[in-house]
């Protein structure tokens, strides 16, 4: 069984934000919700590296654990989905998420949060809607996974920095790259997300 993961090769990432707009375009994500973002470490200094980050679809996902209504769950492919019908917008998943993935539309009173939104690995939603239906799309975005396609962010990455797919294979690809070029700043977030690192 393939275990889906993301891997951002920071030595390839150029902060072009293609992943960000690809995600927005594919899933019609509204203004203010950023399922994916690019963060630049050491900006303007030698050693600068940019990393594209979204939900990493963790092993043993902390968001799912802390969710008070159990609306977040990993599928057998390792994709962490959630059911917006059950989400109460408490924000706990954001505190637990090591990657700042959960997003909340601002609704109504105060800074009050609406239903949580996050990267779905372009695999539709975790609610009762029919896969690939307009109702599912409106709530969660596209369902490329159901078509055998990978998340749009990785598909459109300008430098093939962001890899998506079976964790073993993308780890192999990354390892191969590091061996070939002789350097690598590591698989960002892997130890935190998957309790493992890429062996090079």
């Amino acid at each position, binding site marked *: 069984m393939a275990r889906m993961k993301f891997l951002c090769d920071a030595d390839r990432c150029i902060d072009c934000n293609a992943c960000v707009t690809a995600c927005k375009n594919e899933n019609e994500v509204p203004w203010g919700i*950023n399922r994916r973002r690019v963060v630049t*470490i050491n900006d303007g200094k030698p050693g600068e590296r940019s990393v594209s980050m979204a939900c990493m679809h963790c092993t043993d996902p*902390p968001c799912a654990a802390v969710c008070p209504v159990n609306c977040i769950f990993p599928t057998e492919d390792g994709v962490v989905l959630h059911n917006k019908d059950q989400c109460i917008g408490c924000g706990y998943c954001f*505190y637990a*998420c090591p990657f700042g993935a959960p997003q909340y539309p601002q609704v109504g009173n105060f*800074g009050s949060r609406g239903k949580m939104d996050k990267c779905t690995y372009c695999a539709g939603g975790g609610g009762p809607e029919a896969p690939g239906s307009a109702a599912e799309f409106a709530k969660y975005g596209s369902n490329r996974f159901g078509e055998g396609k990978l998340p749009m962010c990785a598909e459109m990455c300008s430098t093939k920095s962001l890899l998506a797919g079976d964790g073993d294979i993308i780890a192999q690809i990354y390892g191969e790259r590091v061996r070939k070029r002789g350097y690598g700043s590591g698989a960002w977030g892997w130890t935190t997300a998957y309790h493992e690192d890429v062996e090079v």
Partner: protein
Amino acid sequence: MTFLARFRLATFVLMLLAIAAAVPVFAQKLGPDGAPNPTASVTGQRELLQQEPRITGRVDIPDIKSSVLIQPAGRTWDYFHQVLLRWGGGVVILGTVALLAIAYLILGKLPISAGRSGRKVVRFEAFERFAHWLTAASFVILGLTGLNITFGKALLLPLVGPDLFAAISQIAKYVHNFTSFAFVAGLLLITVIFFKDNLLEKVDMDWLKQGGGFIKNRHAPAGRFNFGEKLVFWLSIAAGIAVSVSGFLLLFPFYGTDILGMQLAQVVHAVVAILFVALILGHIYIGTVGMEGAFEAMGTGEVDLNWAKEHHDQWIAKKLASETRPSATAAE
């Protein structure tokens, strides 16, 4: 708690301290000949996480919280919330209930020793009772809706099913958010109204020396409030402030704080709330089944004179003295 869990708790506490004190350390590497070599200067997450608990950088979107790339503390917070809080909270609350049950079994309902005199004295005016019940009612609502967040999915979810539970929780969240304002209002009122009578006095030392009357089995001296009540008052004020401040931080997420602040706020809110619930359980016990004649004070506002003499001898003495003076107005 296992050793490992204890170790993790200790790590967590240390980490929180470390986060607060962390200063960014910047490792710049140079290539051969000392020229800046961006590739050679590559810094991995492992080194960065050794320097700082969180990896932070620059983002383009104007959302300050998105600049945190990785914060492994999320996993620690998950551990706190799922293990420490759940088990700890459960132990504290169930433990309190158990202790009170034991107390009841041993002591039973403490009677008015001299029996009811049949004469009532006003202990709490209507407005005072309003303030108390406003706070009390909102506390109960907040407590139940709050506990649902932590314990609901273990206790309630299996009973009602996920969809109903989600609906309940959604309503509970809004109720919790709105009731908070009532609670804060009540808390402010109580603080103002009862502030003076809860200041510590010399008599409280005596009350304490006599163990509140439990040790020597005779009633200890007290003013309008005895030391036990004062303790509840001050602890409630402190806990109330703590849950209110942390609660409002949670209610207005990321206004003036960051992910660490939010996590700390939630930790404070949850821990204090649990202890608060335990404290108030004790308060309720004494005020209801634990003691004869006590509930009336907040129920009708009037207590039996004998009850007052037994529990608040100095207060009733003063009160009676002032009532005999015809010129005095009903001050309270």
